């Protein structure tokens, strides 16, 4: 259609994505509860809304396809077609096609598979059902499938007086209508037009009567006018039907309720965020509170006398509370339930189980756990990978399971929970577990572990599977499961300040644990000092802080400093050496060691002192400067000074590099 509409396309895509997800979730449930009317109705509504929306926003290919899908669903809903497993499979296939079509519409995919055959199968499924259940009386087609059924409509459009002021242009809408229908006649009703003196150029006085021919349903034609529907008088009447019973459809009865269109004003290329009205309302209430607080403060400071001191303190305290809450609430806008990331897995598991012959039950918990939206996007692919791995390599075949005395059906858990300032996501299975010896052998072969080195702890051994190149080796994936691209999984999680670890018990299963910060903008940090410089470390990467005894610090082969912490030998990293600072302390036994851990790698960081723990707002250094090695960002301390935030994973790698170059 026109520029007018394209601005809303992004909102439509967002909405459609939700609808497709709903469709899928309900279709999956329908497999287990084939008799549920409610599920069927929901699925039908999803298809209907997608069709309506795509027609309005100018995606005829999607509209055409979903129309045949909708027709079939309508027949199923009316019990004219029986829901068989084959039919469900067809519906899944159709759903994938809808997804594909949307990818094309968004410009993410070049071309969708030809859907002519799929449409034919959908149509024949619909008709086949009719023939079997109700003889002969086929429902008159609504339009798309058979093009000859175009109908004549009489339409009356009287835009509200205010539509021009609201930015709508009836002219554009009418020309948009011409795209959807052939206009036979149009008559402009000028009766409301006042004399020139009384004319307000911003008021719309005109109305139109038109006759048109279209293969669309009246509802679809009206959808073009959705944006002015509320204040306007728009009716459409089918001419043939007029004689008997006028089937006037009110414009407002479009498939989308106005409440769903919360945040629709955005440029097409800008990413949009759908925020629940509830969250927004609370935020606005809070802003109101802030304004009141502000006036309390002004009042208390005006003509200030000591007598006003208690009121001033009270005002400041209340301001403090409000601003903290405002910050939390504003942050919460970016948070969405992790359900969105989990939603795709039931289908994945179903398809995998069907194709592999394994019996797998997926159990999810903590769907409501909220996570930053960017984080949800960032973990989608790694999660997919982990789940596939668990199903493919972790879980045994049914025969193997029975032989091992386990239940035939394998279990796969997806759990999300909040733990302090972190979100934990676990992907667990009750499969065969990792083969420790095999990994150890492989690690020695690949030189990750010197051939003569003592056997490291189990945790260290299992952490090897996250090493680059380790994973792709076929024999490891075959024997121990796990592995294809685990290093990629780890890297994508690190990119969002996440960490990954695992626990496994041979024969009983594996649990992969992802730890993510709650949001990317705020970090629970520990500030520490080296000389007169202050640095902040994310609490998530700190294991503990200790003051070592001098006999615990050793020099390995005369160059690598290590420290033994309760029997575990860790490399000692001198922060001042890496950063070229002037420390107050150079003797480890006089300073403090902060034990850092990142993706299974550990090290002890020597610093002068610990200052304290606080929540810090992460600011970018790169925005105005450049990426600095070992620094993840900056933050502003209470006194206005800037403190740098350490990039732990890079620090650990840098240290490894220093040691290597010293060798």
């Amino acid at each position, binding site marked *: 259609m026109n520029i007018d509409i394209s601005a809303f396309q992004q909102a439509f895509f967002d909405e459609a994505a939700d609808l497709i997800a709903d469709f899928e979730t309900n279709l999956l449930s329908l497999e287990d509860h084939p008799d549920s009317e409610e599920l069927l109705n929901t699925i039908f509504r999803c298809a209907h809304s997608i069709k309506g929306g795509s027609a309005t926003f100018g995606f005829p290919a999607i509209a055409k396809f979903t129309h045949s899908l909708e027709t079939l669903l309508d027949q199923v809903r009316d019990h004219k077609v029986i829901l068989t497993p084959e039919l469900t499979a067809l519906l899944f296939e159709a759903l994938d096609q809808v997804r594909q079509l949307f990818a094309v519409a968004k410009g993410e995919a070049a071309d969708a598979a030809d859907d002519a055959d799929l449409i034919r199968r959908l149509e024949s499924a619909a008709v086949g059902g009719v023939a079997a259940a109700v003889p002969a009386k086929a429902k008159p087609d609504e339009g798309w499938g058979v093009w000859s059924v175009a109908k004549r409509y009489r339409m009356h459009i009287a835009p509200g007086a205010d539509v021009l002021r609201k930015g709508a242009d009836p002219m554009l809408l009418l020309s948009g209508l011409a795209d959807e229908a052939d206009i036979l006649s149009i008559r402009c009703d000028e009766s409301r037009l006042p004399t020139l003196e009384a004319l307000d150029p911003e008021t719309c006085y005109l109305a139109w009567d038109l006759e048109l021919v279209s293969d669309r349903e009246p509802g679809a034609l009206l959808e073009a006018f959705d944006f002015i529907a509320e204040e306007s008088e728009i009716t459409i009447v089918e001419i043939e039907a007029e004689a008997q019973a006028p089937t006037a459809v009110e414009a407002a009865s479009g498939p989308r309720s106005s409440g769903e269109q919360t945040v629709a004003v955005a440029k097409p290329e800008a990413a949009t965020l759908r925020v629940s009205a509830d969250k927004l309302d609370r935020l606005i209430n809070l802003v109101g509170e802030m304004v009141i607080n502000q006036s309390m403060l002004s009042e208390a400071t005006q003509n200030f006398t000591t007598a006003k001191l208690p009121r001033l303190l009270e005002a400041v305290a209340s301001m403090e509370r409000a601003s903290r809450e405002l910050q939390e609430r504003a942050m919460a806008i970016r948070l969405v339930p992790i359900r969105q990331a989990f939603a795709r897995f039931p289908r994945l598991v179903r398809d995998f189980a069907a194709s592999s012959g394994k019996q797998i039950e997926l159990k999810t918990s903590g769907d409501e756990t909220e996570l930053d939206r960017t984080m949800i996007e960032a973990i989608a692919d790694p999660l997919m990978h982990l789940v596939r791995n668990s199903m493919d390599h972790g879980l045994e075949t049914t025969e193997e399971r029975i032989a091992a005395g386990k239940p035939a059906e394998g279990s796969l858990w997806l759990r999300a929970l909040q733990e302090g300032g972190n979100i934990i996501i676990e992907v667990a299975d009750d499969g065969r577990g990792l083969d420790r010896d095999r990994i150890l052998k492989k690690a020695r072969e690949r030189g990750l572990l010197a051939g003569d080195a003592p056997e490291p702890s189990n945790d260290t051994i299992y952490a090897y599977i996250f090493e680059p190149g380790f994973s792709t080796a076929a024999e490891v994936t075959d024997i121990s499961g796990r592995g294809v691209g685990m290093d990629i999984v780890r890297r994508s999680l690190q990119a969002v300040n996440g960490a990954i670890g695992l626990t496994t018990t041979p024969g009983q299963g594996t649990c992969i644990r992802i730890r993510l910060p709650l949001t990317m903008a705020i970090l629970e940090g520990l500030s520490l000092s080296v000389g007169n410089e202050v640095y902040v470390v994310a609490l998530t990467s700190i294991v503990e802080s200790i003051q070592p005894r001098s006999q615990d610090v050793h020099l390995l082969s005369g160059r690598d400093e290590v420290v033994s912490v309760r029997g575990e030998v860790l490399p000692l990293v001198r922060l001042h050496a890496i*950063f070229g*600072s002037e420390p107050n302390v150079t003797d480890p036994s006089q300073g403090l060691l902060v034990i850092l851990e990142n993706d299974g790698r550990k090290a002890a960081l020597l610093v002068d002192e610990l200052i304290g723990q606080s929540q810090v707002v992460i*600011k970018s250094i790169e925005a105005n400067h450049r990426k600095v090695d070992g620094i993840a960002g900056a933050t502003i301390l209470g006194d206005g*000074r800037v403190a740098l935030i350490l990039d732990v994973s890079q620090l650990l790698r840098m240290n490894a590099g220093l040691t290597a170059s010293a060798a």
Partner: protein
Amino acid sequence: MSAEESTAHANEAGGQTSQFLTFTLAGEEYGVDILKVQEIKGYVATTRVPNSPPEVVGVLNLRGTIVPIIDLRTKFGLEAIAYDAFAAIVVVVVENQIKGMVVDRVSEVVSIPKADIQPPADCGSTASARAVSGMAQVGDKLVTLLDVEAILLGQGEPAALSA
């Protein structure tokens, strides 16, 4: 000739003029296009950024934005001095990045007719040629006009501007 006089002079000439913020560095007068300048603030201690080029003295919190501060003396290979009460940070915006430059002291804003701006003296050094956009006589002072983009976005070697 004061700033007002030079403005008057420019108006008489009737030609196009540009405004420059001038400052001193080791006794020499330099100017930057006023349209690039966001603000001027007194020198305050910065936070050192490890693993950075020597001219980056640190970063500063400018009302919530982290801004890198570049010492022009170091950048130009001049002798370093202790910052005194006159030392100032000229905050400029180059290609949407905000950066600060430490100068000895800020002088004034002058209007210089385009016609009075001479091409930079050819000192044979490409680095200095890139940093200088022109020279202009303002009263009895010779002002070296700097190209802030070339200085702040150009990577690497000191521009060796010592006059």
